[in-house]
């Protein structure tokens, strides 16, 4: 049981390049989330999904897109990277409301630098 995994672990992009971050979970969780974490700040929610085929915007969605084609995967895309998107990105997953749990399980993070 690997939990939540993220690929890649590190990436350096040039301004204007695109990339996709992949998150996978093997816990059969319904809900998945993408956060970014900047120095001196807590995590901020980018996008989230409450089930396969559904996505919604979080606090800071601009410049990002997501897709949840399969229940176990949640992809975060940057179409045209900007230096302001330099950050550490975390994916998380959690049970649905029927499991009555507030615990989100986090991946190890992806450190992204945009030059």
């Amino acid at each position, binding site marked *: 049981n690997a939990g*939540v995994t993220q690929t890649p672990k590190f990436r350096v992009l040039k301004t204007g390049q695109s990339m996709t971050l992949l998150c996978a979970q093997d816990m059969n969780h319904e*809900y998945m*989330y993408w956060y970014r974490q900047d120095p*001196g*700040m*807590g*995590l*901020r*929610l980018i996008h*989230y999904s*409450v089930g396969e085929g559904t996505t*919604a915007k*979080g*606090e800071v969605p601009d410049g990002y897109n997501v897709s949840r084609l399969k229940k176990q995967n949640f992809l975060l895309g940057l179409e045209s990277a900007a230096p302001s998107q330099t950050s550490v990105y*975390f994916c*998380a997953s*959690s049970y649905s*409301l029927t499991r009555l749990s*507030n*615990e*989100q*399980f*986090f*991946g*190890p*993070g992806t450190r992204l630098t945009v030059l």
Partner: protein
Amino acid sequence: GESVGLHLPTLSVQEGDNSIINCAYSNSASDYFIWYKQESGKGPQFIIDIRSNMDKRQGQRVTVLLNKTVKHLSLQIAATQPGDSAVYFCAEKKDNTGKLIFGQGTTLQVKP
């Protein structure tokens, strides 16, 4: 606007002492408040949560206190150990989507 914030960015304690990490929140509509621990280079890890209609909840070596009158949340760690060194975040959950709003974090340093 709504926010969840911690009083101190850094807390230094002696090994074996008790630690108290504080958090102030502004959104009274939240139904749960949650504490996460983040070790260096890792993702956050759930510690404990408390429902908004409770004042206190205890876990293993940790206690969370909620004072709704002054909108204050605290995490108490008993007999702090070197393995407790990490950044601690409070977060609030306010709706059924599971979305969390995180505070800025307090770094706990445990001195041997």
